[in-house]
């Protein structure tokens, strides 16, 4: 018995020693990972965090400030269409961050809101406006979206990041933090060697992985602006989304209730919400039963939500041409500034209204920070 205990102690000692040396070497050679002055998951690939979910999970601590800020949430059409770097100059009075994650559904969007709330003080939460980009893909059922062979059934991409370095532990009720969120930055330093090794390994194997997975190289903005889809490509996209959404033509009401819960969760903490109904090319929306299902669920949902103080709805469906889209859902790069301007207009108008309200409340002695 003693021999086994001694061996365990020796091994643990050796582990601590080796890891300490590794951490020291990595800290000296590679600067700590940072999200930059404004968070933008679109830049994740250029950071030590590499992927959008990991970037969102690891960098969120810096959102714990009482500066007025906007956080963009949603899937890849938010990343491509509502670009942080194009919106920020149009709303200089606000901090604009993007924590949109490709492939998100509304469950994952809700998780990102929870992650932000975890690291924010109650005061910081009151200065946060969430912009959520909506479209039918965001309402994919969890059983279709997150039950894939490459993951533990039901784990979202955010869940995977929660468990990856042991910051959370898995329980039957869901992930539970092992590392208190206030120590997130310390945890990020502690796992620095893993971040470095992950980055180094991915960089070293990038070409091989692209070759094996058959993914083509990234296209340039010019190439994406010039894309014209054929009928066959449109059919392929429609078929893809039918399969992706769980081989169904109907969306479930439960996911729209999740949206209402997410909005409630933000409002109850004093935050605000801008719901952006994102457009699709007409050939897509007209031929997709899923879009029709989305529209029939969304109309009453948005109508109910926009009556609530702190919620604004932006409908971007009008004034779009099929030629504005590089594929079935993402706008071309030349269109993104127009989307950014539309959103900025709403944000500025809301900001002005808020300032006016604050000034009025202040003048009448009602405002209490």
């Amino acid at each position, binding site marked *: *018995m003693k*021999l*086994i*205990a001694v*061996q*365990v102690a*020796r*091994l643990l*000692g*050796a*582990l601590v*020693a*080796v*890891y300490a040396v*590794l951490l020291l070497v990595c800290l000296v050679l590679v600067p700590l990972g940072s999200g930059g002055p404004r968070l933008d998951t679109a830049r994740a690939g250029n950071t030590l965090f590499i992927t959008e979910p990991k970037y969102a999970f690891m960098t969120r601590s810096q959102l714990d400030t009482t500066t007025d800020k906007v956080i963009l949430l949603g899937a890849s059409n938010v990343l491509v269409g509502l670009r942080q770097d194009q919106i920020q100059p149009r709303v200089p009075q606000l901090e604009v961050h993007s924590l949109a994650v490709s492939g998100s559904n509304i469950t994952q969007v809700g998780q990102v809101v929870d992650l932000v709330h975890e690291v924010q003080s109650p005061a910081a939460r009151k200065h946060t406006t969430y912009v959520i980009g909506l479209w039918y893909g965001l309402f994919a059922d969890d059983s279709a979206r997150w039950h894939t*062979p*490459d*993951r*533990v059934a039901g*784990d979202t991409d955010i869940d*995977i990041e929660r468990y*990856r*370095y042991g910051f959370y532990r898995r329980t039957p009720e869901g992930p539970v933090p092992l590392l208190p969120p206030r120590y997130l930055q310390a945890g990020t330093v502690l796992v620095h060697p*893993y971040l470095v*090794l*992950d980055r180094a*390994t991915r960089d070293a194997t990038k070409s091989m*992985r692209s070759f*094996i*997975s*058959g993914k083509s190289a990234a296209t340039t903005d010019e190439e994406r602006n010039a894309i014209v889809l054929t009928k066959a490509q449109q059919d*392929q996209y429609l078929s893809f989304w039918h399969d992706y959404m769980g081989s169904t033509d109907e969306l479930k009401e439960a996911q729209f209730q999740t949206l209402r819960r997410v909005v409630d969760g933000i409002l109850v903490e004093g935050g605000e919400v801008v719901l952006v109904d994102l457009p699709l090319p007409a050939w897509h929306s007209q031929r997709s039963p899923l879009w029709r299902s989305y529209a029939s669920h969304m109309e009453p949902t948005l109508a109910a939500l926009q009556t609530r103080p702190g919620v604004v709805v932006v409908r971007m469906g009008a004034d779009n041409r099929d030629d504005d889209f590089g594929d079935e859902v993402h706008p071309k790069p030349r269109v993104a500034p127009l989307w950014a301007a539309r959103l900025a207009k709403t944000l500025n108008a809301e900001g002005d209204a808020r300032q006016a309200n604050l000034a009025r409340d202040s003048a009448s002695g009602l405002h209490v920070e």
Partner: protein
Amino acid sequence: MTLTSLGFVAFALVVALLSNASRSVEWRSWVLLAANGAFIVSYVDRPLHLLPLAAFLLLCFSSIELVRRRPSTAALWVALTSILASFVLLKKFSFLSDAWLLPFPYLLMGLSYVLFRALHLLIDARQGELKEPVSPRDFFNYTCNFLTFTAGPIQRFEAYRAQRQQPLVLDEPRVFQAFSRIVLGFLKVAAVSAVFDNLFQTVSGRLLEAHAAAAFSAPAFALAFVAAAVCYTVYLYYNFSGYVDIVVGVGWLCGQDLPENFNQPFLARSFLDFWSRWHMTLSDWFKTYVFNPLLKVLAARFRSAKAGPYLAVAAFFVTFTIMGVWHGTTSVFVIYGLILGAGASVNKLWQVLAVQRLGKKRYKALAETAPAIYVSRGLTLAYFALALTCLWVDLAQLFAIFGRLGVLGTAACYFGLALGAAGAFFVWDSLSGRFARLQLGEHAAFRGVAARNLGLALQILLIATVASFFHKAPEFVYRAF
């Protein structure tokens, strides 16, 4: 409790510490009993889910005791039939109608290996080799040992009983050796096999997805198929042999000397040689309880001396076909069995004909030349890797793949892979030979307690690093069989 989880590591450590808490063999046996119970219970949510396993164990135990007390051929056949019928029913073989199946979920894991151990006891009881009765505790500890319950190795009862009666004595080198073996096992399962599983999933995903597969040209499709087959083979080997390393290492700490299941299978120069190195305890079991009795029956039926070698060909075909079919409950495993059977019988036939034509001496001399060795190794690996396709596709997918490849494409895949493997083996042997000559492990700097533990720590960090790359811990593949 999956074997690759931290929960299992903690569990195994507690069992090892408790096993060493007293020198009493009775104490160790009770600790093992409690550990086995806890391990099995960890896989179910409700007691009802254990009921079929408990009933199956009871049936096996009572059958063995009955045959031991009244060893007759009739009793043996009744017992064999009832045990095998229960097994087929509980395993939900696909040819069974739903009306035959139990209408609730239950624990299926471990059933195959319980069956192997029970049949071994039953046949030995019939042959009068089981002199003393097996106590219920010993029966449970032997058939449901938490280390071998999932997928073996299949220990013989005599070996289990001998170890059970020996007091556990550990020394420092043995403890370190056990820890090294366990860490090596995790390195194989959680790092090497996980990487190859990831590669395999990526490539096979494209092969099996109709749109992606259609985009492949014929040579690219063949190349992708070979790549998937190789990745699956490497994944399977490291996954299974890593599992064996873990359970053997934990066994050493708990006073169990479990049999080895692998002996460098990729050194095999023929299909039959391969199966004497791969999943060895399963091969031995089939040799003892299927091949040998079958050969005996055939020899009694066909007494001609000239027929002797050909009887072995037939016996190999039947044995390997059954062994292949054992791997699963659907029709694709029948194909797998036939491929294994064909491989074994053709291999035997080749040996018989080559010896007849060349003479034993010339054949042996030819087989010992370097080109013959590497080509044989390549052909063996290629055959096994392509046969394993049956374990990662269903019947429709199997026909789709080989239909697209055609006879020529399949032959090109086989010989191309064989030649590639032969070249790779040659390069590997040359490099590892040069590395071995450096004798780093023998250097004093690497032999101290601190250095050896630092080496283990590095391996653990490597495991943790690779595990952090993937979204879930790799499953232990053989638990499904």
